[in-house]
């Protein structure tokens, strides 16, 4: 017994470990087989997104939007008579992996432009690579101001974004709560591990108190929290008339439905992180009544550009596009517009053309870059009614 048994044990243990590595390796490889195509007469576009990890839905929806746009562009003859060739890689929602992926796309694949990532952290990981290799990068949804402007206050030449930045949406949210919903006492519940959430929290608080409102409670949760009932009970006892929840939809869904269960019927307000078809599935349509959020676009927007995009997206993927898909779609068309404007697929020329883009008509609104590469565009305020989005109004941010 003894010895043979021991060896067998060891063998099995190593087998188990080997299997674990195998699975993670396979998980990593799967993404790399997309793309392909001929080497010549194409423009390679690097697509670096959160396809796995905790921001996976945002990243994969952005990618879906981009791939839809590229398919349409190629079908209609491409750009400068060349086909766009997407190279999709996964950054696993990790900042360092995003740097690796961007480097790989820039140096090995020699792409002409980088699209993505979707989140602030991962984009900050990829931005230095874009600068170093002189390749333009368009992020779809990284909303922190520091993405396009570095720590010294200098604009990052090669980094652009199609989404608006955080402060305006939090400020417009606070104004909407105070002026339109007539709320005087608000509670804030934010994600402490998330720069996006913290930024919105601070801006909302400042604007709301400046207007004359009162923050009766502010609490943070961590991204692994699942049970929000104790804190919500506390908010109720503090007399909050509105709860501001600047967080991602999977947490928002749970918070909202747990609050409604506890008979907390006050309106709730959030930001673009709320936008996902899954929000209704998690929270339930009933629970979401009387909730609002600020967003890049609304699928309820009757404009023909929006409705055509929704139709095409549904035909390709079988589901309703959220704002991330729309931002991805816009990013790809923005790149096309820049290449055409530059009349060249040289990365530096594309960058220069991007900086001069004016009145680009996207699904998420009309876009003109300011001198910090931030688009100036309208913010949609959306209300959820029986699980359906309805557009309350579109507002232009003013100081």
């Amino acid at each position, binding site marked *: 017994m*003894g010895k043979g048994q021991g060896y067998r044990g060891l063998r099995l243990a190593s087998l188990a470990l080997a299997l*674990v590595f195998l699975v993670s390796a396979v998980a990593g490889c799967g993404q790399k087989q997309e793309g392909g195509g001929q080497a010549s007469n194409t423009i390679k576009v690097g697509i670096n997104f959160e396809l796995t990890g*905790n921001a996976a839905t945002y990243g994969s929806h952005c990618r879906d939007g981009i791939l839809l746009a590229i398919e349409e562009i190629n079908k209609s003859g491409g750009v400068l008579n060349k086909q766009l060739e997407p190279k999709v890689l996964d950054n696993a929602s990790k900042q360092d992996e995003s740097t690796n992926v961007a480097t790989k796309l820039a140096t090995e694949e020699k792409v002409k432009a980088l699209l993505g990532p979707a989140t602030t952290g991962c984009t900050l990981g990829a931005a230095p690579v874009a600068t170093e290799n002189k390749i333009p990068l368009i992020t779809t949804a990284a909303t922190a101001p520091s993405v396009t402007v570095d720590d010294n206050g200098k604009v990052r030449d090669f980094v652009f974004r199609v989404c608006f930045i955080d402060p305006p949406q939090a400020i417009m949210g606070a104004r909407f709560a105070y002026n339109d919903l007539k709320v005087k006492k608000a509670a804030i519940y934010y994600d402490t591990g998330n720069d996006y959430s913290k930024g919105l929290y601070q801006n909302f608080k400042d604007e709301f108190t400046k207007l004359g409102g009162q923050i009766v409670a502010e609490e943070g949760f961590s991204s692994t929290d699942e*049970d929000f009932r*104790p*804190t919500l009970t506390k908010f109720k006892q503090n007399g909050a008339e509105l709860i501001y929840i600047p967080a991602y939809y999977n947490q928002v869904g749970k918070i909202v439905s*747990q609050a409604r269960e506890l*008979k907390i019927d006050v309106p709730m307000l959030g930001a673009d992180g709320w936008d996902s078809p899954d929000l209704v599935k998690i929270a339930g349509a009933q629970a979401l009544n009387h909730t609002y959020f600020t967003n890049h676009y609304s699928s309820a927007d009757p404009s023909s550009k929006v409705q055509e995009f929704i139709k095409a997206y549904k035909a390709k993927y079988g589901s309703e596009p959220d704002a991330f898909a729309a931002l991805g779609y816009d990013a790809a068309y923005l790149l096309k517009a820049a290449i055409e404007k530059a009349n060249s697929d040289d990365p530096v020329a594309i960058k220069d053309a991007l900086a001069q883009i004016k009145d680009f008509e996207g699904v998420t609104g009309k876009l003109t870059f300011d001198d910090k590469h931030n688009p100036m565009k309208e913010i949609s305020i959306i209300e959820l009614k029986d699980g359906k989005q309805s557009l309350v109004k579109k507002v232009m941010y003013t100081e």
Partner: protein
Amino acid sequence: MDFLQQLINGLSLGSIYAVIALGYTMVYGIIQLINFAHGDIIMVGAYVGFFAVAVLGWSFIPALVLAMAACTVLGVVIERIAYKPLRNSPRLAVLITAIGVSLFLENLGLRVLKTDYRAFPQIIPRDAISLFGGLTVTYQQLLILITTILMMVLLQYVVHYTRIGKAMRAVSYDREAAMLMGISVDNTISFTFALGSALAGVAGVLLGLYYQTCHPLMGIMPGLKAFVAAVIGGIGVIPGAMAGGFLLGIVEALVAAYGSSQWRDPVVFLLLILVLLVRPTGLMGRDVGEKA
């Protein structure tokens, strides 16, 4: 009144922890193995429950039974493949294997089930019963509490009043002596895994309901918390696991209510450190010398 409301919040979470902690404690009691894969078996249970409800359209009790059955099979298979061959190896080897199994299940889950959060269909009406003085208990909380208590009573019965329960206690007390008395140690250990995993299946469905979502990594945190609960209660002791689970749930709710929700996890682990310093065998643990 606020305090009572928070107590209700804590009790329902605590009862789920207790069910999970039972699985840890039974397996530890019998082969001194901390089964790190336990949390991931919960995840599998939650997904089986999810598919039973969302795809097959089953109601709560059949879904629960299916999740229990699936987890039982999974638990026994894991035990046979990963732990049984190592029965006479150093404990560290088994522990490392347990971690390997856990990582394997998590990564396989991420691969097969994808990373999206899936909304758990709400088979229980999302409403609350109003008690006296503005106190509310949701149907979910009530269901979770009842299911948990039922499972505990059932488990106590199995362990104390059946032949196999007697065998389990004998094996945990002295494996060699039990073997000499004609007890099939292997079968008893397999049964313990089956029982613990069935409870993990229950916990999975309850967690899915309570958290409203499932995710391939959803088992990690509750698994860890329940492990802490088992240690606080005295690992290897069944009533200790229950007490530890309830205690932890209530502590979490109170810390979130009267302190801050960010202090929840630090307080839980601080509690663990304190208990280990003051009473290393846990609150209800027997003070027995370590077996060689």
